[in-house]
């Protein structure tokens, strides 16, 4: 879209004018780097139950047009495609875009708290689907608060991979409860993951890396992968190279701390 002479378009106007036509420009979707997940109180982001999510709208390529027309009132079919990978705090969607061709048969969802960033990813996915016919139909993004509403989106044991890449470090002790890896939230992640499912964490903040690994180590439902297992994990190889934050850290020659854990079956307590 050409800018009219004699006057610059505002960011909002330019965003509206380019949406659905070109690849979204990041500069039009700048947002604060941080957002407080505990004060985010918009119920409109949360479906009441996983059955209320209109998956056909998010992944139209995987549903018939009839199913899409029924919206969220559509009755759930057994065996219909369901999301297996979730990128919690997907940011600008770098990982989603890289994972999409690697796992073409898997539905992947990015969740992001910041409105504009989520909007960017949605536009980015739509642009990619337009530019590459038949591709990128398996990735989508929703704006929601994952610290509150993950169980509203997914059933027990539905997921096989959960990504927590370069999360907000929340350095202050009093803000540790805002961290995305915490004993309370790990119980939810264990609930959502199928046994054998994996949790991926990466950060460039050493203190946070230690903290996340310690929380996962002490949780009885998670087991850290060995070096060999990590080396054999295709998605694990993407964490530093595919994400925007990871590339930024590499550019600045920083260090990235990666830890991958597996959801294990609970050991039955002796009666």
């Amino acid at each position, binding site marked *: 879209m050409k800018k009219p002479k004699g006057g610059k378009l505002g960011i909002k106007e330019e965003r509206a004018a380019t949406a659905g036509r070109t690849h979204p420009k990041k500069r039009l979707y700048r947002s604060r780097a941080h957002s407080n997940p505990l004060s985010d*109180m918009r*119920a409109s982001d949360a479906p009441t*139950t996983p059955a209320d999510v209109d998956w056909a709208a998010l992944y139209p390529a995987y549903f018939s047009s009839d199913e899409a027309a029924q919206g969220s009132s559509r009755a759930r079919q057994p065996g219909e495609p369901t999301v297996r990978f979730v990128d919690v705090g997907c940011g600008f969607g770098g990982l989603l875009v890289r994972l999409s061709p690697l796992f073409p048969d898997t539905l992947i969802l990015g969740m992001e708290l910041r409105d504009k960033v989520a909007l960017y990813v949605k536009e980015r996915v739509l642009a990619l689907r337009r530019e590459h016919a038949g591709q990128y139909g398996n990735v989508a993004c929703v704006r929601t608060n994952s610290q509150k509403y993950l169980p509203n989106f997914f059933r027990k044991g539905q997921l096989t991979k959960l990504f927590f890449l370069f999360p907000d470090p929340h350095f202050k002790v009093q803000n540790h409860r805002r961290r995305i890896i915490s004993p309370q939230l790990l*119980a939810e992640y264990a609930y959502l993951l199928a046994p054998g499912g994996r949790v991926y964490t990466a950060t460039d903040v050493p203190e946070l890396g230690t903290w996340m690994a310690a929380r996962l180590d002490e*949780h009885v439902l998670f087991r850290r992968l060995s070096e060999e297992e990590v080396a054999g994990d295709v998605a694990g190889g993407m964490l530093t190279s595919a994400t925007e934050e990871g590339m930024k850290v590499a550019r600045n020659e920083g260090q990235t701390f990666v830890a991958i854990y597996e959801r294990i079956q609970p050991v039955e307590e002796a009666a």
Partner: protein
Amino acid sequence: MEAHNPAGHAVAVALGCCIQVFDCRSQHSSEAPMEHAAAVRDLTFDPAGRMLLSGGDDKCARAWDAATGSLLHTWEAPKKISAVAFSGDSRVALFADNTITALVVAPGGRRLASADRDGKVRVSVLPRTPLLGVPEIQSFCLGHTAFASCVAFADCPAGLRMLSGSGDGTVRLWDPESGSLLATLAASALPAVPAADGAGAAAADQAAEDAAVDEELLEKAAVAAPSGHLWLYPREELPPAVLCIAVAPDGRTAAIAVEGQPELLVLDVDGAAGTLTLTQELELPGLTRPTAAAFDRDGRLWVVGGVAAEGARAGVLQLRVAVRGSHGGFFAEGAGGLAAAAQAAVEAAYTGGSEEGAVAHTGAAPLQLNSQLKKRVFSEELTAVRKRTRAEQ
């Protein structure tokens, strides 16, 4: 706020910051002051009836000797405590803060239910050593469209069932193992026409207060958005909330208290068929606003109601006991009953105000829970305004 001693002859009542235990057998009330520094949010007896656990806005949980009223232990938490429970073996005190509205341990002691302000009810696997945390979630029971306010288990012959009450005015029956919803019963509905009584006035007051907040935000918005574009703040209307669910020892009968309503609803719980049926609207003489109810081991229903005035010592407190008649319905126990003395003791302890005075004084009381726990839902526009006008951290 009230808890009933499972041993069957005492009832604990919290009004504001103070807790009192009324023993019906010895016919006296606790004399030692049982106080928190701020409002008590939840209290419960341990399964054996020897201890009382309370938690409140002073960020403390306290364990008391139920017989003497002496303080056994205090735990300090980083946030206000909103729910408390004992483990099945009485050895561990559990408490929760923040958005949790209720904590209940299931019969058998292996499941823990928690309700929250997002309307979720979570069933967790309670380990034998809960001090190491509660890492495993059994299920999420999703369906309430407003905050969940109370939970109770029903030990049915067909298996364990769970009931939950909510600000959406419904009571729901669940299979706690799978999280599947078995039945929904509408316990209250939005009033068709706003009544002009205390409750209506309270709601109007609240609406006016909210409108003032909106005005303020909109003023800021007008500065932030000089286009003069104004919007309406969509305010979610909620029916009166379900305050309390009590389930009888047989697992078949439940009693429900609804905010601001004079009757208790008695339900038949069919765990096998997965149904809830309203069997009786129980009005007890002299009980105007039931707020809490509990069954004792013999199936008698203890009900506490009344209105707390500000500062809480001066309030009106009412206690009634209902027994089941041969026809199956409940009726108020006669004057010779066990609770008559407790009733007198309870009502004598709170003589600070007449009922009319207290009701008039605390007009907001009948619908307090609703305005306290209701989630503030902001429109996209208002969220944008808040973002633009908030103070930088």
